[in-house]
């Protein structure tokens, strides 16, 4: 029972990392119709700044500065490399984000260095007893913070003028422009939000194990999450992210007993297996909008 509950809490905690990243992917997809492979770069760029600042300004302020920095970096990338490409084929823009990702990550790796950097979070690996079960504090904290952030984001989309503008632009760009919405601002804002969310996710991912040159791979695990949920569905991103986290956690906990032939660390690739299976049945994910095909 303890193992089961720990898996659930760990799965939800890791799942919330994927939720934050997946939201970034979905927000960029909804505004620009591309999958941004630059998310891992934004994630490690913000997180490495957090790890440098945490000693002098404290954890929460460092996270805030890291989020703002990654948001600014996202806007800069969008403005310099992607704005000139508007109207070009989707594949071209996607590959450009892949190129940006490589460039930014190499520079960030220079700052990370060879050893593991700590983000100095207040939780560490300490546990808290709930109903007699020892559960890790950091997973609970991640889940709660993510829930708050997601709620705030949904409220922003629902109730603010800018959120409404972003939703309108994702439905029909030209109609939105005709209504006086600046598409440039929408693009920039979606990259800023994606960058900020990625940094928060990166900081969460670096609690406990720390940040090293291999941490970026976590950001790509949000891809199965968005494919599961459907590329253009915010709710799908939340559900997909949590599903991926839980699947990974359960496979990690029980695979050794049930299917040892799958090899060590199968948990790390299990999200991709789930993604392949779901896509065979539902080509646009669980909540994605099927494309209307016209000649």
């Amino acid at each position, binding site marked *: 029972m303890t193992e089961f509950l720990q898996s659930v809490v760990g799965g939800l905690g890791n799942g919330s990392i994927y939720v934050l990243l997946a939201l970034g992917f979905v927000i960029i997809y909804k505004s620009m119709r591309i999958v941004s492979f630059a998310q891992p770069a934004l994630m490690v760029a913000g997180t490495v700044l957090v790890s440098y600042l945490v000693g002098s300004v404290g954890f929460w302020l460092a996270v805030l500065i890291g989020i703002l920095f990654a948001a600014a970096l996202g806007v800069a990338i969008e403005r310099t490399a992607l704005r000139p490409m508007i109207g070009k084929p989707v594949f071209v823009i996607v590959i450009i984000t892949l*190129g940006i990702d490589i460039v930014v990550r190499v520079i960030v790796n220079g700052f990370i260095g060879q050893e593991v950097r700590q983000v100095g979070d207040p939780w560490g690996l300490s546990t808290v007893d709930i109903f007699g079960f020892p559960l890790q504090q950091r997973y609970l904290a991640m889940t709660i913070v993510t829930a708050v952030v997601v709620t705030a984001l949904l409220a922003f989309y629902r109730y603010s003028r800018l959120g409404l503008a972003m939703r309108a632009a994702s439905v029909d760009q030209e109609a939105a422009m005709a209504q006086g919405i600046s598409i440039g601002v929408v693009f920039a804002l979606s990259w800023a939000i994606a960058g900020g969310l990625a940094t928060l996710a990166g900081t969460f991912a670096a609690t406990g194990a720390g940040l090293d040159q291999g941490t970026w791979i976590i950001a790509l695990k949000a891809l199965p999450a968005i494919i599961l949920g459907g590329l253009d569905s915010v709710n799908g991103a939340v559900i997909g992210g949590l599903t991926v986290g839980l699947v990974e956690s359960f496979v990690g906990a029980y695979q050794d007993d049930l299917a040892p032939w799958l090899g060590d660390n199968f948990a790390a*690739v299990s999200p991709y297996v789930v993604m392949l299976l779901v896509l*065979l049945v539902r080509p646009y994910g669980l909540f994605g909008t099927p494309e209307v095909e016209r000649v």
Partner: protein
Amino acid sequence: MTTTTPVTETSDAEVRQRSWPFGSRRRRPAGRPLLYTSYAQDMALLNTRPKRIAVGAILLLAVAMPFLVTDDLLALLALACAASIGAIGLNLVTGYAGQVSLGHAFFLGIGAYTAAVISGDPDGRTLGFGITSLPVWLLAAGLVAGLAGLVVSPLASRLRGLYLAVVTLGLVFLGEHIFREWSQVTGGVGVGRTGPVPELFGVQLNENGEIFTRDQKLYLTMLILLLIFALLARNIARSAVGRAFSAVRDRDIAAEVIGVSLTRTKMVAFAVSSFYAGCAGALLYTVTGYVEPGAFNLLLSVQYIAMILIGGVATISGSILGAFFITLLPRVTRELPSLLPFISSTSGAGGISVFQVEAVLYGLLIIGFLIFEPRGLFGIWIRARNYWKAWPFSY
């Protein structure tokens, strides 16, 4: 210039027979390089005299290479030839058929391990059958990888665009996991196994012989194989299959309406592309002589994407150009530390290392080419050619 050449009375079959593969020389009017008098001339591989001369010269230079450059550079060129085969394969599925694949590393890996297992030492630490004949393991590597491509293709026929890109990305991670864990075949992480052992007509290609050294033999083998594979790909591209690829790429629904079977075309594209990748994987690790399971990662896929983007999308010669460019790039950047003192040649020390410069260059080159010259090196060549064709007029 103004006189028209009378069309002689010959049957189509006769023309085709006489003209392959260079086009009918006798019937081309002099001084009118763009005037074709038969379909066979128009479709000929080398349809103009300058092309014939240039290709001949390049081939001559390529064959003379073993006697011109040192062995270590020759090994690099052999690698580039093998990589070209892989790049041509990726270009067939991504460039011609328009199906974005980030999973090329997976198929390269399958090919490399199939070949290594078939030609491996039967008494060795890892699985091996000891059949060292090059044609046997090369075909097997291609077929196994092609079969894997066929298995994946139902996904491709159900998915479009970005969904497909992400799914093929997932393949790379799954493949990496399998290669890491199946140590009976792959030797395990950090250990690896020896690459395929090449033997052709009783000649051991990976040992120094009496006449040729190891690198000379390998280079010549790779060159001949590249020629075969490139010619094959070019013929696929200009036949009905290739036209079906282009139709699916340009507008898949319209293609379906005019009678191109989407499922079938995508299956063929993935199978052929994976076949090429499998062969390329087997040949690459014949040259390096060593396979490490960690090598088949996302970066390898990105390198192949970079090859076709830098070389030229949907061109065979562009794929070869791009593969040579990317393979020879590290050799150039290794020279950087002696020129620019702030770049160090090892990764551990502070400052910028050559490996970082290399990775940044991949990224910057991809971005730069996509923004400034989307047709790649091939496009630069076309621009230069058109400039001189119309000279002294601007167009």
